[in-house]
């Protein structure tokens, strides 16, 4: 199978959609991993082996992209010729940014107080906001409201980073 000129969803026999069937993704990923395993090409020519390695790396990138909701959102925007990373302050609401500063102040305070319960509660609340926003992204994407979808993607980037930071703070307190 040639992987060029296919979108990442097609790699895994999935429709181009924000909803992804996790079982299909895992199953098809394993199939591809077997098909393009470097060991199978041990006797192949150098140029063939290089190509197989390139394919393996492309497959991994596709898997990461389709599996992660945030990367998948960015990829779907790219497929619609929208640059998800284009820097434009007008895509961010002032109230949203204000809330982001407050949340990071809360995180600092909870970390300083070593308040693990507080951190866990905060993680729950931010994760729930994030899930609502992911649903909103899908609604906008399906309605082809791509400017709004990009704005939601940019807001989601802050929330994903914040959840990572809360988890890092928790791990530090638990001394992992």
């Amino acid at each position: 199978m040639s992987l060029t000129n296919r979108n990442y969803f097609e790699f895994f026999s999935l429709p181009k959609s924000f909803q992804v069937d996790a079982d299909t993704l895992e199953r098809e990923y394993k199939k591809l991993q077997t098909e393009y395993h470097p060991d199978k090409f041990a006797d192949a020519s150098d140029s063939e082996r290089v190509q197989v390695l390139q394919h393996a790396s492309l497959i991994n990138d596709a898997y990461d992209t389709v599996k992660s909701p945030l990367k998948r959102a960015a990829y779907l925007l790219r497929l619609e010729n929208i640059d998800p990373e284009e820097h434009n302050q007008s895509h961010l609401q002032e109230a949203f940014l204000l809330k982001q500063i407050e949340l990071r102040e809360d995180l600092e305070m909870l970390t300083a107080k070593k308040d693990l319960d507080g951190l866990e509660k905060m993680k729950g609340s931010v994760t729930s906001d994030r899930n609502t926003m992911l649903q909103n992204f899908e609604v906008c994407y399906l309605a082809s409201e791509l400017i709004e979808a990009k704005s939601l993607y940019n807001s989601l980037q802050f929330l994903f980073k914040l959840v990572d930071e809360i988890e890092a703070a928790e791990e530090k307190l638990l001394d992992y």
Partner: protein
Amino acid sequence: MAYSDKVLDHYENPRNVGRMDDDDENVGTGMVGAPACGDVMRLQIKVNKEGVIEDAKFKTYGCGSAIASSSLLTEWVKGRTIDDAAEIKNTEIAEELGLPPVKIHCSVLAEDAIKAAVSDVRKKRGKSE
């Protein structure tokens, strides 16, 4: 990637961290963010009747370069008029701090922040552009 000495200095001893009363009509607030790195920046200026910036405060959650860019900016804008401050270019900040190309966007964020703060104080004073 190593930070320059100037970035480290601002990062370790940030100038003018804090907040001012946003309800004060002489205070302009600029809130900006960089989604790709999750950085958020709040820059506030206090402006007198002559349009001169008397004080500036910032709070930035982000990398060292973003913190240094906003810290340096608060030093630069004090004593300038708001018209002057709105003219500060990100390239001046990047040059002063010796930011590498991958960190230029941090100085852009600081420029966006001062512009937003100036436009906020103008709006409050009924001179919206």
